[in-house]
C-alpha cells in the first residue's frame, strides 16, 4: 500500500480517539478543581538540563517544559494548575520521540509525592486501563532486571551487565542509562503494565528534593506503561539557592560535554526565593499515553504530522 508523505500519519479514527483523550484529561482536572493555564512556549531564558535541549530560535528558546512558568504561578498563589501543550526537544527523533510533542504537566500544592502518584495512576487507568500499578525503587529495579546495584556496583560490573558493550567513556550515570535502555526497558516491555519507579540516585534529582539517605536519593518517580516511560514526577525542590546550584551544575555538565550553556531563568529563581509552596508535580507524555491507549507501536502513528512529514 502506498503512503504518500503529504498525507497525515495518523488515520482519522486515531485523531478522533486522540481528541476524546484530550477531552477526558481536561474533564479529569476540571472535576478536581485544577486550573488549566497557558504559559509561554517561547521564552528568553530556561531552566537548563544536562541532557535535554530546548530549541534555540531567533528570539529565544522553544521550551522543553513549562516547569519554570508553572512554578512562578504556584509561587504567586495560583493553587493547583495544569498545562496541556506542546514542548520542544532538539534532536529527539525516534520510535518514541518527536522533537515537538504534547506534554501534560500539573502541580499539587501541599501534596506528598505518594498522593500525586495515586492521582497519576487514576488518570492513566481512566485512559489506558491496566492491572493496578506496581511499585519499585530504582535500586530494586536494577537488582531485579540487571543483577547489579546501581549505587554500589563497580563501573566494570555495570558495563558487563548489559547485553552489548556500552559506548566508551560513560560515567556511572551514563552506564545506568545504558543498562536502562538495553536491558531494563526491554524487560519491562515484555512484562507490560504500569510500574512506578521511585528513589532515583541523587545525581538524577533534577528539580526534586533529596532524602539524605544513605544513600541519598531523589524524591522522584517515573511511571512506565508497558515498558515505555510515560511520566516523571518530583517532590518539588523549593530552596532557591539549591535550585540555582543545580541549574549551574547542569550548565557545567553541558560545557563538559561540549554543549553550549543555556541562559538561566532568573525570574524562576526569584519566584522560588519569594516562596514556592511545598508541592508535588509531574509531567506526562500525552502522545505516548494515546499510543498505549490505542495499542499503537510508534509515536508517529498517533501524530497527524510527525517530524518526517513536516
Amino acid at each position, binding site marked *: 500500500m502506498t503512503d504518500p508523505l503529504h498525507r497525515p500519519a495518523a488515520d482519522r479514527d486515531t485523531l478522533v480517539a486522540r481528541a476524546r483523550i484530550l477531552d477526558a484529561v481536561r474533564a479529569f482536572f476540571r472535576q478536581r478543581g485544577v486550573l488549566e493555564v497557558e504559559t509561554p512556549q517561547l521564552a528568553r531564558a530556561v531552566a537548563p*538540563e544536562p*541532557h535535554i535541549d530546548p530549541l534555540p530560535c531567533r528570539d529565544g528558546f522553544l521550551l522543553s517544559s513549562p516547569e519554570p512558568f508553572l512554578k512562578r504561578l504556584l509561587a504567586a498563589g495560583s493553587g493547583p494548575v495544569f498545562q496541556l501543550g506542546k514542548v520542544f526537544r532538539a534532536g*529527539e527523533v525516534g520510535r518514541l*520521540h518527536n522533537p515537538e510533542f504534547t506534554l501534560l504537566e500539573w502541580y499539587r500544592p501541599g501534596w506528598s509525592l505518594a498522593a500525586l502518584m495515586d492521582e497519576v495512576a487514576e488518570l492513566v487507568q481512566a485512559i489506558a486501563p491496566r492491572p493496578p500499578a506496581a511499585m519499585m525503587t530504582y535500586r530494586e529495579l536494577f537488582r531485579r532486571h540487571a543483577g547489579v546495584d546501581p549505587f554500589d556496583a563497580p563501573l566494570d560490573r555495570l558495563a558487563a551487565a548489559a547485553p552489548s558493550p556500552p559506548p566508551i567513556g560513560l560515567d556511572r*550515570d551514563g552506564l545506568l542509562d545504558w543498562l536502562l*535502555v538495553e536491558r531494563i526497558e526491554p524487560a519491562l516491555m515484555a512484562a507490560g503494565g504500569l510500574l512506578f519507579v521511585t528513589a532515583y540516585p541523587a545525581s*538524577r534529582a533534577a528539580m526534586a528534593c533529596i532524602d539524605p539517605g544513605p544513600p541519598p536519593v531523589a524524591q522522584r518517580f517515573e511511571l512506565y506503561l508497558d515498558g515505555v516511560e510515560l511520566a*516523571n514526577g518530583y517532590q518539588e525542590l523549593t530552596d532557591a539557592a539549591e535550585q540555582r546550584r543545580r541549574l549551574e551544575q547542569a550548565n557545567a555538565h553541558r560545557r563538559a560535554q561540549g*554543549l553550549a550553556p543555556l541562559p538561566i531563568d532568573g525570574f524562576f529563581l526569584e519566584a522560588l526565593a519569594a516562596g514556592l509552596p511545598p508541592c508535588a508535580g509531574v509531567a506526562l507524555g500525552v502522545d505516548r499515553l494515546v499510543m498505549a491507549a490505542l495499542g499503537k507501536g510508534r509515536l508517529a502513528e498517533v501524530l497527524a504530522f510527525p517530524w518526517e512529514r513536516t
Partner: protein
Amino acid sequence: MLTHNQLRNGTRVEIDDQPWIIVSAQFVKPGKGQAFTKIKIKHLADGRVIERTFKSSETVAKADVVDKVMQFLYSDGEFWHFMDPATYEQVALGESQVGETIDWLKEQENYDVVLWRGKAISVSPPPFVVLEITHCEPGVKGDTVSGATKPATLETGVTVKVPLFINQNERIKVDTRTGDYVERAKG
C-alpha cells in the same frame, strides 16, 4: 562529521577505519538521561553487518565514498578491470570484491563501482541486464502459459530458469536482484 541525529538509513559512514552503510538506526533516551543512537551497519566491500552505539555527544565520520558508472573491460583471472568511460581511468577489483556480481559481468557493459578514498571496493550490476543464452534444451512451441521452466546457461556462465518456449542463442532480460527471467530482449 555527522552528529547522532544525522545517522540515518542509507548514510555511508567511516567507522574503525572502514566504510559502511547504515541499514537501521534507532534513537533511545531515558527521559532525563543520555541519548544513544544504535545503528546497524553493513560493510560496503564484504557485506558483513555489525551494530554500534553512539552517545549524543559523539560524531561519526562520513565515508569518503563515490559511486561511478564504469565499463567492464576484461578479467585476467586475478583481477577484474573497469574503466571510467569519460576519463578512461581504470580500476581493478579482486575476486572477493567482485563477489556475486561476477554472474552478470559482460565486457563493454556498464556497472556501478563504489570507490572509497579513491580505490574501488565493490561493484554491482544494474537492476536488469540483457544476456545471451549459450545453452538450453530446445524450445517447446506454444507453451507460454503453463509456468513450467527449464535451466538455461547464459554467456556469463550463470544458470537461470527460463520458460519452456525460450531457445538457445536468444537474448533475455534478467532481474539481477533475484536472478529471475523477465522477458525476451526486444530488438
